């Protein structure tokens, strides 16, 4: 019920709503609940509403941590 997916804003309409894209499909999204919704920003969409913006720096930091975990496991293997 609380599923929400990241979608990229590709258009801001005259009425303030956004058009957001996920894997090629476009959806009209209510942007009234988020600050900083601009073109190119990812928003988390639930039941037609953006409930938050996605912080790309934080996402990249988490992915970098995941990459480190894989890297250090590979080094452990070599060291054995």
């Amino acid at each position: 019920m609380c599923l929400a997916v990241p979608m990229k804003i590709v258009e801001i309409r005259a009425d303030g709503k956004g058009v957001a894209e996920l894997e090629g499909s476009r959806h009209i999204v209510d942007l009234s609940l988020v600050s900083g919704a601009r073109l190119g920003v990812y928003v988390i969409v639930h039941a037609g509403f953006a409930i938050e913006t996605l912080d790309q720096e934080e996402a990249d930091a988490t992915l970098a941590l995941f990459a480190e975990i894989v890297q250090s496991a590979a080094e452990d293997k070599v060291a054995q």
Partner: protein
Amino acid sequence: MNYIDAFRDPDVAVQFVRLIAEQGRALAAQGRRVHIMEVCGSHTMAIGRYGIRELLPENVELISGPGCPVCVTDPGYIDAAIALAGQGAILATFGDMIRVPGSESDLTRCRSAGGDVRVCYSPSAAVEIAQSHPDREVVFLAIGFETTIVPVVSIVDEALHAGVRNVSLLTAFKLVPPALHALLADKEIKIDAYLCPAHVSAVIGSQAYEPFAADYHVPCVVAGFEPLDILYGVHGILGQVLKNEARVDNQYARVVRPGGNPKAQARIAQYLEPADAVWRGIGVIPASGLGLRPAFAAYDAERKFGTPVRVGRQHAGCRCGDVIKGKLRPTACPLFAKVCTPDRPVGPCMVSAEGTCAAYFKYTLRDERQGGGK
């Protein structure tokens, strides 16, 4: 980059499973078992879909919590909705509610008997239905946790701005933190840590869980719904447990801010106020729900039509209440997969796509039959 696939990378998953296995051995050396409650139904589904329960050490158990808003809706709520349909109202609802059992009937049977029940993907559709049927009353079945409450209460916002008066909400909103309090206060339930919901937390903020860490010494980790988010969350929880620490860690910082979403909180506060709520299987939890403020009584179906929601009656053998509280695994319910199946559900945990029983039926039943489950 779509910020989905990167969080499903199997190479990273393998490493997390290995790290968690090491933690499991360290815990076993201390003779410890860890019960982690995943609060949210979307976590329950993801855990089932990706087989995460089977990837964890034997002494690390994931217990499903009360985080499916459909499952915790009392039968009396369905009874009230059916009564409103009987008075000629159009019922607009999320699809999950269609087969939830009331005391005597459900919305599917209500529709077969001539009731006008319409499924909406976005709550905004309720306002559109009201506009295209100015001579009818439209009642939206307003259920949900914090995530869903905001879009649903926006119906009132939209209706006020558009001058639409023939739409109203039958509210049964639920709040996550009061339920988490109630579960920790119940000594029969063993919870060592909370895997906190992703998008409820986007609204309320990770700070909302501070009391559970501080007062109950229960580690709380906010995690996203992708498989790597969940494994990372379990790893983070076990790290705290091994050091006997209890704090709130926000591991879904790409979406969740410490204080949550102030605009969403403001919209909730504008239209809604705290109310006692009935949870199926748990009973009344004080101030665990939200109702419309008196100023918006014209949009409150209970007040508008004088049809109060009363506590309903559930199937005598149904153990959904114990499943919701994490006291009983679905497979231990005598009705599970025998009398109660997704095709003929007896209890709401089997109805909802995110219900614990539906998740077990879909993803783990075959394993257990083949002796592959734990």
